[in-house]
């Protein structure tokens, strides 16, 4: 086994949670270590942990201080983090339909202008991406994806929008993301997917897991409308490619 590189920092988040921080920046290698620690904890549970929340650069570990102290849990987390992570074999890969531009992606043309290229070129580069769910947060099912082509990196909007549509796929900074519910956003809206990453009364309620691989397939607005109706009725319109 290779020598473990920099151990993570243990940051107190109150008396009932520890932030295990691997990096202070968005960093693909750090995110892989976050997801690896999450898998190790799932495989070898530690008494007192109530839930874990993976993010880009850290794993938030909620625990019950009646069962375990900060110091004792911290030691166990560092030991788990130093272990060889379980392999990523079996990573699920999703193919998600998206209709780009027009009423469903109102920022596509402005993004093309800002990046001095054509909307078709933006679509081609975005749809060619091989993404990974780095974290899910903010609102139910809002999936932050890493792996955005560097040529699509663009600062967030100066004025966030108070409402953006359900299913929006957008870019912001060096990230792209799939949101499930309508809500506020400061990102640039490229398109929409009929896929519900979160749907109550469906099994599973949450479609994507942190660590899942994602690719996009461009579909036309008519296909979007058909799939949107099917998805509303509870059908899966995302395609599970592997395993």
């Amino acid at each position, binding site marked *: 086994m290779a020598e473990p590189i920099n151990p993570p920092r243990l*940051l*107190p*988040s*109150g*008396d*009932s*949670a520890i*932030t295990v*921080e691997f990096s*202070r*920046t*968005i960093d693909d290698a750090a995110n892989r270590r976050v997801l690896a620690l999450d898998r190790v904890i799932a495989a070898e549970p530690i008494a007192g942990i*109530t*839930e*874990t*929340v*993976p*993010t*880009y*650069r*850290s*794993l*938030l570990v*909620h625990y019950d*201080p*009646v069962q375990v*102290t*900060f*110091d004792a849990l911290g030691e166990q987390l560092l030991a788990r983090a130093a272990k060889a992570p379980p392999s990523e074999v079996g990573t699920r890969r999703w193919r998600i339909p998206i209709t780009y531009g027009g009423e469903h992606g109102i920022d596509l043309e402005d993004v093309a202008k800002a990046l001095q290229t054509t909307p078709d070129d933006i679509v081609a580069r975005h749809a060619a991406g091989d993404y990974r769910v780095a*974290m*899910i*947060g*903010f*609102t*139910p*099912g*809002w999936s*932050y994806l890493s792996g955005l082509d560097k040529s699509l990196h663009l600062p967030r909007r100066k004025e966030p929008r108070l409402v953006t549509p359900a299913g929006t796929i957008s870019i912001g900074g060096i990230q792209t993301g799939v949101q499930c*519910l309508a*809500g506020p956003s400061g990102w640039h809206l490229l398109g929409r997917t009929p896929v519900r990453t*979160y749907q*109550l009364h469906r099994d599973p*309620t*949450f479609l994507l897991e*942190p660590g899942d691989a994602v690719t996009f397939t461009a579909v036309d607005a008519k296909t979007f409308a058909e799939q949107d109706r099917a998805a509303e009725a509870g059908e899966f319109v995302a395609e599970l490619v592997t395993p």
Partner: protein
Amino acid sequence: MSKLVVTSIGPASSVQDGGRPGSQRYGLTPSGAMDRLSLAAANTLVGNEPFAAVVEIGPFGATFTARGGAVRIGLAGASRNADIGGRPVAFDSSATLAEGETLNLGFARGGSFSYLAIEHGIEGEPMFGSLAVNARAGLGSPYPRPLQSGDELKTKAASSGAERRIELPAATDAPIRIVFGPQDDEFTEENKQLFLDSEWKISATSDRMGYRLEGAVIKHRDGHNIVSDGTVNGSIQVPGNGQPIVLMPDRGTSGGYPKIATVITADLGRFAQTSAGRPFRFKAVTMAEAQAEAIKFHALLHSLPDRLRGIDDFGLNIEALRDANVAGQAVNAVDVSTWQVALP
């Protein structure tokens, strides 16, 4: 089938319970009562599980009418003028509305949220094991939104048991205790000290997602944009304008502002009850102290059934003393075993 009909209610009032932890990794916020001790006390008064669903009532008044039979209720949290058809009702006690009677609740005094538990609980369809309203995510039952007049809370008919009251620790005005972190290193020692030395007020624009603080401007060492990471109830994040926001049970599960400190578990409910505009301070404690307090708070929640008393078991009217605003001293001066006033 009895029901409690909401005949009038103000904003920030909704069905809440212990919340729905366990799915924060999917972006699902836990929600749940702002003041868990008062939630558990109200439920204990009517024989419910401590974290069963209740009505969390915001600062304004509200009225409820029993239909289809008698309804027994337990009241805890921020106290108010309360009566049932003109009969005064005390907080931290149970009471029964006969069919057709109306419970009138005034404005909250000395707090923001009151808790109305209904004996046998509120009927609803649990979502992720909880009836708690999270309006943004469309969750909650029987209504996935704040309560409105005309809403009906279905339950079973009141039992014939005696009314009870519950003896809770005296209220305190002590500073709200915090532990620094997770990102206190984004702030200079000078600014951390300023955070502790300042007098703060909660802004009127606060809600169940977060309490905005007004007071000193807390400056960051190098900018206010960090990479989003996970949040907890009580996370104190500092956005670009330097005015902290304390994250509450409807918070986003992740956030991108540096978090200077976290309110300790034992003080979360007391902090949630701090009225807008009322000055308060923070006090830093060590992790060991915070965890010892969390364990004591856990024990307090589990001691509630032992704190029930008969409604008439006093030699003096504690509620009247509390209303006269001398509660802290007066209640402490009563010997709990005899309910006689102990002279200092």
